[in-house]
């Protein structure tokens, strides 16, 4: 067994490290801590943040890729032969779904296939019948199973809550619990706990039933839609956050230099972003992706497996999205830097002989933080939605990659069927809607608290 590091995996974990470091840095500043406290005082923001954390958890689970040895008897000194397919931790959790592919479409919780097929029965008569599904339980115990699943879900949820309470409290556990429960705590922990319980119950229910049924049905080639929806989380979240990660350094560097140095630097940077932003976004992305496709077709040696190929394509797509989306933030940062650099504290720092670099780091960037944060959370939901549209246009992620856009795109072709094949669309819709809604609600709150115009 060996760990495979895809490019996007590296970036995701890099992002996690950056976030942790950043969290430590800001936890030292009491003002910033207070701001975050204010953000999470809203129970909507709290619930949204927890939902987003669950999505992030699935992303991270899906970002550890393993490759298993084909023969377990590989002795020392020999080069180990690896199996062709790379699996992630999420795949391991859903192994049963990966193996239980059916022949074609089937509705959620169905026991038979969606369409009739020709069969020859014992007497040699040919007729049309709905074939039973291969990997579905025959016992009629859906309710009993659901009951157990809900119980287990509540148990798991409570366990997380108890752990959190222990971590928060130092000894007076009961008191803390009642204070949180009666909503007397400064942060709305009760909402948080309820969200956790609901999510835990929902996920356990989906997971436990996925052993016996296709909870969200199967697609054209019989793949489990539930599994696809969970796999798509990584694609959506990655496009949402990595794009920002890639564009942030560029936007900050160029925006601050333009605002601070002025002169020809300012002119050049302004010219650059005016030019880029005058090209319609989708067309620039399309042009970029088309060129990338041609380039990748010309260099088949860059990747060993199809997974690596689709991963590279995802990385390029993220980069192209980053290139097209930094201009708006850069323009705002330039204007704000221009404003800040005229203020007294910067003049004072200059008079004391503080170097330009230190002025940027100590005095300018911290004062730009609210703009950066607001734009990060605002962009996230837009990018998740953009993925679906881009995949539809044909310039999105690789067609072999699981993504909500690809799910919608495939389901769209089946719209004319009667009765409709609605479950792929429905699943993509629900998974996307929850993520984007949570992100939108949180970004609203962040904007209200951090934007100085709202004070």
């Amino acid at each position, binding site marked *: 067994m060996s760990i495979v590091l895809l490019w996007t995996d590296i970036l995701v974990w890099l992002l996690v490290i950056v976030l942790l470091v950043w969290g430590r840095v800001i936890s030292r500043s009491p003002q910033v801590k207070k701001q975050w406290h204010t953000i999470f005082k809203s129970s909507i923001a709290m619930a949204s943040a927890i939902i987003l954390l669950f999505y992030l958890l699935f992303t991270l689970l899906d970002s550890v890729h393993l490759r298993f040895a084909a023969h377990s008897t590989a002795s020392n000194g020999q080069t180990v032969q690896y199996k062709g397919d790379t699996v992630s931790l999420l795949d391991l959790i859903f192994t049963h779904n990966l193996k239980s592919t059916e022949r074609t479409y089937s509705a959620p919780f169905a026991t038979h296939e969606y369409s009739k097929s020709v069969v020859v029965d014992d007497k040699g008569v040919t007729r049309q019948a709905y074939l039973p599904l291969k990997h579905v339980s025959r016992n009629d115990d859906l309710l009993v199973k659901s009951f157990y699943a809900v119980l287990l879900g509540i148990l798991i949820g409570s366990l997380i809550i108890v752990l959190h309470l222990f971590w928060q409290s130092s000894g007076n556990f009961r008191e803390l619990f009642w204070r949180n429960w009666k909503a007397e705590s400064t942060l709305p922990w009760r909402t948080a706990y309820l969200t956790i319980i609901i999510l835990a119950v929902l996920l356990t229910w989906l997971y436990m039933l996925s052993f016996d049924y296709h909870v969200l049905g199967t697609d054209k080639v019989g793949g489990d839609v539930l599994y696809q929806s969970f796999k798509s989380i990584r694609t959506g979240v990655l496009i949402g956050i990595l794009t920002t990660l890639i564009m942030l350094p560029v936007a900050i560097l160029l925006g601050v230099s333009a605002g601070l140095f002025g002169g020809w630097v300012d002119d050049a940077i302004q010219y650059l972003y005016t030019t880029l932003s005058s090209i319609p976004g989708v067309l620039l992305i399309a042009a970029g992706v088309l060129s990338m496709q041609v380039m990748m077709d010309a260099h088949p040696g860059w990747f060993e497996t199809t997974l690596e190929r689709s991963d590279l394509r995802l990385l390029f797509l993220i980069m192209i999205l980053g290139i097209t989306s930094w201009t708006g933030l850069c323009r705002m940062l330039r204007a704000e830097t221009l404003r800040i650099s005229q203020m007294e504290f910067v003049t004072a720092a200059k008079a004391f002989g503080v170097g330009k670099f230190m002025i940027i780091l100590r005095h300018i960037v911290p004062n730009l933080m609210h703009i950066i944060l607001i734009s990060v959370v605002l962009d996230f939901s837009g990018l998740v939605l953009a993925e679906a549209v881009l995949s539809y246009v044909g310039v999105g992620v690789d067609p072999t990659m699981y993504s909500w856009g690809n799910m*919608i795109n495939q389901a769209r072709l089946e719209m004319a069927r009667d009765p409709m094949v609605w479950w792929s669309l429905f699943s993509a819709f629900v998974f996307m809607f929850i993520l984007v809604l949570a992100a939108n609600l949180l970004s609203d709150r962040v904007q209200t608290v951090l934007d100085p115009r709202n004070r």
Partner: protein
Amino acid sequence: MFAYIIRRILYAIPILIGVNLITFMLFFMVNSPDDMARAQLGAKQVTPELIASWKEEKGYDKPLFVNHHAEGIATVTDTLFVQESLKLFRFDFGFSDANRDIGSDIKERMWPSLAIALPTFLIALVTNISLALLLVLFRGSALDTGMMVVAVMIMSISGLFYIIAGQVIFSKMWHWVPISGYEDGWGSIKFIILPVMIGVFAGMGAGVRWYRSIFLEQINQDYVRTARAKGLSELKVLFGHVLRNGMLPILTGVVVIIPSLFMGSLIMESFFGIPGLGSYTIDAINAQDFAIVKAMVFLGSVLYIVGLILTDISYTLFDPRVKL
């Protein structure tokens, strides 16, 4: 003002050159004329001579940026980049891979695009502003809060779902309108009505929120308090003062997209089978037809820059303080 417009148009030239440079690099660095020749001629009968003659015929035999064989200014002008850019500046888009004249295709497909985009734009503008004014009038009430929740939800759903749901409900189940298609003249109304309605609805969430925030910013200003103190009714305050003063930020966001309406909407047109520029672009992307994509990128940038100029002009019309 005339001098100002001239100045802005002149300022647009370096930007368009920059746009050209970007598209040129995207297409020619990765997809060299040799590759294009090979793709066009087919893989089988490619000989170096054939490629050379194809390149000469299409004018692709020149060097990319610097021509070392030429003298004087021609070292820069007698290159592929300058020649291609000059063609684009004359709006001569050349021929597509299927050997159709891109320029006349664009002229033909512009109108169906506009037939969808213009009604969507106008209806959305009116409904969003009226709804936002209504919410501002009842600000803080249950109606306001409820509508804002609905607006966030509308925003959180991908536009693809609105289109699919609309087609399924209104065309497939209720048979009110045909599912897709287009014809010229007044007969097109039955094809247009559904995409327009869906477009208006899908943009409603973000639109109403945006206009509402603009109006709310105005409503706390001193002049509004003065107007109320004069004894004006809330409705008069809203229409006479808040709306008029909110006009400037609205113009900034709205006027700039008017010329781009010609470009059409990519998804809307391809879902509803409208033969406009949006579906033209999608088809080109799927067929990897670089010439068309390049033409559309250039056209889109030109229209955007025209939009910026129109925005500045509209300021002078609505705000007497602005003099160009």
